[in-house]
């Protein structure tokens, strides 16, 4: 069987993306539109939260993705550090802005939700706070990438930053919890049926989450391909100037 590492060849990866991207993109749009339309138009208001509960279809998927994008970057960084596949490093680079935007969406929708629910835009609640720190990590990661000229060095450094940053992000999460007990909802998507949000909200939410995940995958594929092409262009131009 062909090894999965074959896809570490940039050319092969590009070709795979060419094939994969259209269906994933179409699916993503379908799922997103279905989920959001379902959630926005065809679900009742919550007895306690009124119509604000509709924000959940944006807030929860983006929050989930914000965290998982960082995890994906961590894995990709490790692959780069250990096996030195360029595509992996570029995928991490491609995912960072997507993750950052997801973090912003989670923060903004959360803030807008907080105004009617808690009577304040922002509270120094542990979950909110650790999200803000995550956003800072995204910013630092992106800034470091763009500040370093040599591509390989930039990949190396950002990978280490991602690694060390993850450790400190977990530490911070711990510290923040210790520092303040919060207002924020606990996990409500557990498999334990009893604790879940009501079914009317649950299913459209699942579709939305699926849509966001597909969107994330599509964007990362697209942006990784862009990075690969940009890198090849840079390499060819550099070679051209040299001779």
């Amino acid at each position, binding site marked *: 069987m062909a090894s999965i590492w074959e896809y570490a*060849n940039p050319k092969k990866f590009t070709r795979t993306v060419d094939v994969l991207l259209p269906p994933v993109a179409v699916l993503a749009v379908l799922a997103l539109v279905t989920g959001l339309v379902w959630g926005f138009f065809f679900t009742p208001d919550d007895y306690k939260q009124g119509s604000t509960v509709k924000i959940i279809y944006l807030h929860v998927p983006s929050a989930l993705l914000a965290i998982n994008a960082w995890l994906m970057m961590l894995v990709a960084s490790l692959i780069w550090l250990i096996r030195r596949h360029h595509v992996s490093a570029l995928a991490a680079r491609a995912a960072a802005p997507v993750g950052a935007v997801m973090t912003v969406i989670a923060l903004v929708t959360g803030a807008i939700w907080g105004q009617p629910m808690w009577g304040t835009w922002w509270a120094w609640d542990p979950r909110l706070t650790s999200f803000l720190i995550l956003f800072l990590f995204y910013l630092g990661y992106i800034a470091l990438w763009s500040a370093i000229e040599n591509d390989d060095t930039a990949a190396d450094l950002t990978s280490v930053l991602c690694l060390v940053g993850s450790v400190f992000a977990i530490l911070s999460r711990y510290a923040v919890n210790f520092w303040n007990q919060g207002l924020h909802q606990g996990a409500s998507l557990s498999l334990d049926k009893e604790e879940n949000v009501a079914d009317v909200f649950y299913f459209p939410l699942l579709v939305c989450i699926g849509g966001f995940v597909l969107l994330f995958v599509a964007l990362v594929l697209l942006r990784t391909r862009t990075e690969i092409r940009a890198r090849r262009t*840079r390499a*060819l131009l550099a070679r051209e100037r040299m001779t």
Partner: protein
Amino acid sequence: MTLKVLDLGVSRGGVPVLEGVNFAVDPGEAIVLTGPNGVGKTTLLRTLAGLQPAYGGKIVVPDPEAMTYAAHADGIKAVLSVAENLMFWAKIHGTDGIDGALEAFNLRDLADRPAGSLSAGQKRRLGLARLSVTGRPIWLLDEPTVSLDKASVTLFGDVMRAHLAQGGSAVIASHIDMGLEVRVIDLTPYRARAKVSRDYDEAFL
């Protein structure tokens, strides 16, 4: 302590600069690398020194800690005196005494001057004096005689001859004749002709 370079390729900024470089430097021998500006002398020396990875081929040397590298940037601290600067590198390399080095490069009168107040050539002499205190046998020098007056070039030649006589060796990049009778390698023929591959890899060329 023979330094052997086998089919070496070096790259800078991800672009291959030189390839297929072959030479060997035996104890007691020095070679001079020449070639037009931008051919890759500095890059080659940095690769030999282990500061950047080779792009292909091999560098064979019994002990990588046998080499020391001196570039335009000399690692000189402006606020420390000449003697303090040298003393630091002597301590780092566990060698004793900086007197010989001060003497050899005619720095004795300047020993207590802060290095920041030296002229361009005086600073360069200090940078070269550092080589002696490392006590290492293989010297990698990038344009060592820049800014030196004629007397100082002669001093440098004497030090180099003494170093070679003691079984040391040196690889020197230079555009100007230093009055040493040594083997000269012109790097121009080794210019990399990077092949562009269809199914790209090797950092996508």
